[in-house]
């Protein structure tokens, strides 16, 4: 099933980009196309990060174990849209002015947060291959890939610090992320309890 589903999901993940390109070619990007491109690639990045983080809970809750097979692709799409988002900033907003960008990163906390979110995704994208998992070993690979929690959190903070007054959308992303992290926290606490219980049992 995954063999047919994967290409379909791949195409689906490209739909936001296709939509943006189509709108651009038909002058449908509104009065400020560059702003529209910046905002929609940013939205896509956060959305794909959250979708990627939903795979594990969804897999466990629905017992659809094949879902793990698409997680890497979803994560790489988050990185892909994050790269496009960064490129709109580097090219269309700053026109490759390195000096201005460095000043921005140092001075503007929403840029600092956004850059952090992006930088944290880089090692994850680089170690997304099967070869990397083997090389690093499952445990180490897994702990490295927990960086996605911090990347997503930095992404939400980036959005919160960016808006002028209306926090509705960033807080929507934030609450979804909150639930996804809470799920893991509960799972982690529960497994610790089990370990602790086992330890007590063995002592007795």
């Amino acid at each position, binding site marked *: 099933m995954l063999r047919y589903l994967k290409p379909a999901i791949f195409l689906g993940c490209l739909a936001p980009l296709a939509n943006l390109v189509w709108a651009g070619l038909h002058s449908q990007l*509104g*009065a*400020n196309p560059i702003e529209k491109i910046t905002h929609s690639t940013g939205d896509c990045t956060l959305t794909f990060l959250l979708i990627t983080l939903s795979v594990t809970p969804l897999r466990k809750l629905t017992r659809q174990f094949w879902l793990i097979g698409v997680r890497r692709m979803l994560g790489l799409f988050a990185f892909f849209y994050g790269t496009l988002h960064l490129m709109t900033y580097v090219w269309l907003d700053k*026109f490759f002015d390195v000096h201005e960008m460095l*000043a*921005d990163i140092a001075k*503007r906390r929403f840029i600092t947060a956004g850059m952090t979110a992006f930088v944290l995704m880089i090692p994850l994208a680089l170690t997304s291959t099967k070869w990397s998992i083997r090389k690093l070993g499952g445990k180490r690979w897994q702990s490295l890939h927990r960086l996605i929690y911090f990347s997503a959190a930095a992404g939400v903070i980036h959005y919160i610090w960016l808006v*002028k007054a*209306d926090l509705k959308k960033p807080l929507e992303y934030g609450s979804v992320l909150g639930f996804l992290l809470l799920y893991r926290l509960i799972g982690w606490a529960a497994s610790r309890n089990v370990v602790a219980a086992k330890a007590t049992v063995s002592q007795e």
Partner: protein
Amino acid sequence: MLIKKAEAIRSSEITPQSLYLNRRKFLHGAAITGAAAAAGFGLREVALPSATVLAGNKIDGIKKSPLSTTETVTPYKDVTNYNNYYEFSTDKEGPATLAKNFRTRPWKVKIDGLVEKKEELDIDTILKMASPEERIYRHRCVEGWSIVVPWVGFSLSELIKRVNPTSKAKFVEFTTLLDMTQMPGQQRPVLQWPYVEGLRMDEAMHPLTLLCFGMYGEELPNQDGAPIRVVVPWKYGFKSAKAIVRIRFTDKQPQNTWNISAPTEYGFYSNVNPNVDHPRWSQAKERRLGEFSKRPTLMFNGYGDQVASLYSGMDLKKNF
């Protein structure tokens, strides 16, 4: 960048007297033309630089103004579909549809505070106070984008002179309509409603400060602040209050909504100033809608020759 000084008025640009005398016709037939517009008769092409279809009621007898810039006017479509008007929506494309049925008649503007006679002026009385002028101004948003708009109105000083503020009046405060049934954005406490803004008296009396009721030769579209707003071209756009229902004269500096919302980010003065960054972004450059590259932002939005003297001796970093 070179900002051309406004040219003297050419005789060809002076409106014929017959047209000038007819300028009030539009005020009378508002209901009839409104109905016609609704029926689709009001739609017509007007040969503007952007060649767009306008849909409002034409304002007759508009005089050109030497205060206008000669820069390329931003297309009507962009100015009417890209609005920061949080009373309707925090989404810039929202106000165009959400303001469609906004009622601009009947409309009264309360004049109070330090004036000789407190009164309620009917919008149509205000519109007759002086003859309409077209003022093509640069308009710079605090977010870093800008437009060039052919506003229609007359200097706010024309109204102020007629309502006789007392000598104690040092500031003017503008209040936007509060009506959450008509302005759905007010149902959420994104900002403190109603929206208030203010100017120092000398700023309000400056000839550039426009009491505005039209643009592109027509009545102001609802999403751009109908039926009446101010336009203060050397300040960031949020200083130019829309849909005004109250003008109050006071001896104390009035509060302004964005300053209440984020005091470290938006000051009372909010003069366009490329040297004073917004805490979260640089103000050195701006993107003119329709242009790919950014252009440098000019001190006082390019109106320094006219307004810099208002602030001589003031620390504009402190009084941002």
